[in-house]
């Protein structure tokens, strides 16, 4: 197969978010929501995006309501716009001015290619949102239907980003403890949100050492698919095509970062959003609502409650605390649901007693809220050790690639529903701490060695670039 046709290339990821100049009315609601002031223009005139500043979070895609009407006579035909946007020709939904370029066509082509062995991963926030595209209530939890649908679409292995979220916690928790005990750069920042990472690189490059060196779960999964995964499935790595389904548009940017090839190949070949997966399911005429539930494949689809929390703001923090507590005290955390890091406030501070000492943490949701904290850190006023930042207002459940909520009044309820079912998922899973994931334990035993070890460092950690 011609690599340029299907796999992500750097050219693809340079420009992800666009504003259709024919459709934009210049209402500037996107300008107001953009966390990095990347959208510019005159009021009442079509807006443009500064691609260097854009962190590809897709919040403008979510809020835009200027659409192509069938009564607009002086605009390009729908077929042309569908092609420009990389959408499947079967897509029927209205076309809005602000959009992200799609990759469902690449996935469709890869799934039809018998030479490729497709391994797919599905992020935690996808399972509490995709059913909305098929008419179920806000936040309906459908991991079993997603696994079944991905299998029906023809994926050879239906794995899960949640497995890699557990793996991330093993590495990130260990890194935090190492920095605290051996004197590394503190406070440590989470590095799971690619929009946040790009923001640090372009706005606060001097604070890059604070970022955890851990790759995001998406990239860890990709690197493990093409190494350990190839051994499990007895398949040549060059045949493996790594697909990810994400609630996030910036994940397309992340997977194309030049350094994300530690497996010897592109760790993730193509990223589609929750919306794009729904489009693929409709395109294949799969009756999603009546699919019998299926399991994700083992071992790289086994996950804990902690992993599912990555979909909500404060979730990575909560998952990391559960495991850090165990790593430090050798005991399980007494109260497993850590409510002090949950909630909707833009900046939340909490203290967690871990054995004889107190770990101070900060959770930031909504990139607009990051600046205040970053300035404090720059001024040497940080009195905490660990900080989680998620770009989107309610965490990944409100990501730019999630089902687009049509009316502004529905948005809060949608996010509350998605978050509530994320917590319910955690509570209903038998194992709720990442270090107790049996297949993660096996991965360390038979392949990686130990967290922060040589192989882990090579495959699961990365470095960042100043973009100032």
């Amino acid at each position, binding site marked *: 197969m011609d690599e340029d046709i299907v796999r992500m290339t750097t050219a693809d990821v340079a420009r992800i978010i666009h504003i259709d100049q024919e459709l934009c*009315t210049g*209402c500037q609601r996107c300008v107001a929501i953009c966390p990095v002031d990347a959208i510019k223009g005159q*009021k009442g005139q079509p807006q443009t995006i500064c691609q260097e500043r854009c962190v590809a979070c897709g919040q403008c895609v979510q809020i835009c309501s200027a659409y192509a*009407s*069938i009564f607009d006579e002086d605009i390009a035909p729908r077929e042309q716009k569908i092609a420009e946007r990389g959408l499947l020709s079967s897509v*029927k939904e209205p076309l809005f001015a602000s959009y992200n370029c799609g990759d469902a066509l690449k996935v469709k082509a890869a799934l039809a290619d018998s030479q490729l062995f497709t391994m797919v991963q599905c992020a935690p926030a996808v399972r509490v949102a995709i059913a909305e595209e098929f*008419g179920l209530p806000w936040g309906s939890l459908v991991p079993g239907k997603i696994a079944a649908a991905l299998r029906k679409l023809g994926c050879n292995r239906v794995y899960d980003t949640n497995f890699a979220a557990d793996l991330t916690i093993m590495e990130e928790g260990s890194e935090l403890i190492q920095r605290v005990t051996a004197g590394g750069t503190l406070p440590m920042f989470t590095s799971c949100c690619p929009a946040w990472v790009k923001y640090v690189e372009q706005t606060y490059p001097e604070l890059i050492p604070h970022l955890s060196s851990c790759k995001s779960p998406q990239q860890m999964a990709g690197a493990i698919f093409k190494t350990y995964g190839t051994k499990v499935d007895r398949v040549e790595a060059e045949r493996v095509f790594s697909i990810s389904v994400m609630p996030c548009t910036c994940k397309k940017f992340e997977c194309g970062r030049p350094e994300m090839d530690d497996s010897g190949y592109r760790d993730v070949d193509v990223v589609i959003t929750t919306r794009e997966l729904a489009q693929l399911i409709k395109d294949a005429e799969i009756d999603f609502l009546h699919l019998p539930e299926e399991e994700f494949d083992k071992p790289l689809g086994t996950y804990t409650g902690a992993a599912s929390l990555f979909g909500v703001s404060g979730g990575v923090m909560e998952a990391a605390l559960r495991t850090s507590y165990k790593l430090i005290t050798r005991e399980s955390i007494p109260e497993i649901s850590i409510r002090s890091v949950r909630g909707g406030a833009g900046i939340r501070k909490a203290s967690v007693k871990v054995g004889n000492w107190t770990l101070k943490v900060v959770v930031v949701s909504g990139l607009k809220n990051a600046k205040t904290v970053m300035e404090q850190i720059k001024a040497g006023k940080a009195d905490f050790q660990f900080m989680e930042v998620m770009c989107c207002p309610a965490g990944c459940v409100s990501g730019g690639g999630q089902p687009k909520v049509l009316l*502004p*009044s529905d948005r809060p309820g949608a996010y509350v529903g998605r978050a509530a079912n994320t917590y319910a998922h955690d509570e209903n899973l038998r194992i709720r701490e990442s270090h107790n994931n049996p297949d993660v334990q096996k991965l360390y035993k038979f392949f990686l060695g130990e967290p922060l070890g040589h192989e882990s460092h090579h495959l699961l950690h990365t470095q960042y670039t100043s973009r100032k």
Partner: protein
Amino acid sequence: MSTNLNAFVVADPNKCIGCKVCEVACSVAHTDKEFVTAGMIDTPLIAKLYLVKTLAVTMPVQCRQCENAPCAQVCPVAAITQINDRIVIDETDCIGCKTCLMVCPFGAIDIVPVYRDGEMVSQSTLKVKTAEGFVEKERVVASKCDLCAGRSTSPACVTACPEKALEMIVPKQEKKQRNVDAAVNLLNYVKKFVE
């Protein structure tokens, strides 16, 4: 005879930013399915109000529910009637002749295709001659704001507008309020003058 005047929705051009949420909300409120996400929509959005953008003004325009509705006066098949406090088009009777569209002083009426269960409704008799032979012609009907008849809350566009630029005007209440405002203003003016 009823002395009640029909209510209508009107936008404040000073507040409207032209985002078209009103059009989206209107379209969604008038489909036969309950749409909540963009991905669920499988037919074109067809609103019953129209965002107007000129150099001087940006605002949606919609039906004023005219008391002596010219559209009803000219409808050759009497498909337009007054029901309760609104002017209503009976889509089953409408023949798509466009006369109402021509006489409406506000351009508040459009002729639109009909969708049912995600499919465009075709006519049974009238065919269109194409290169591939005769094909069915879609059924079109006159369409205009019906104040979201059947909705228990205020019209969808009013609720959805993020700038609160749209308002349902109930003429008698509006007139009374304006009288009250005028009286208060006059009183304040006189007070200032006396002081």
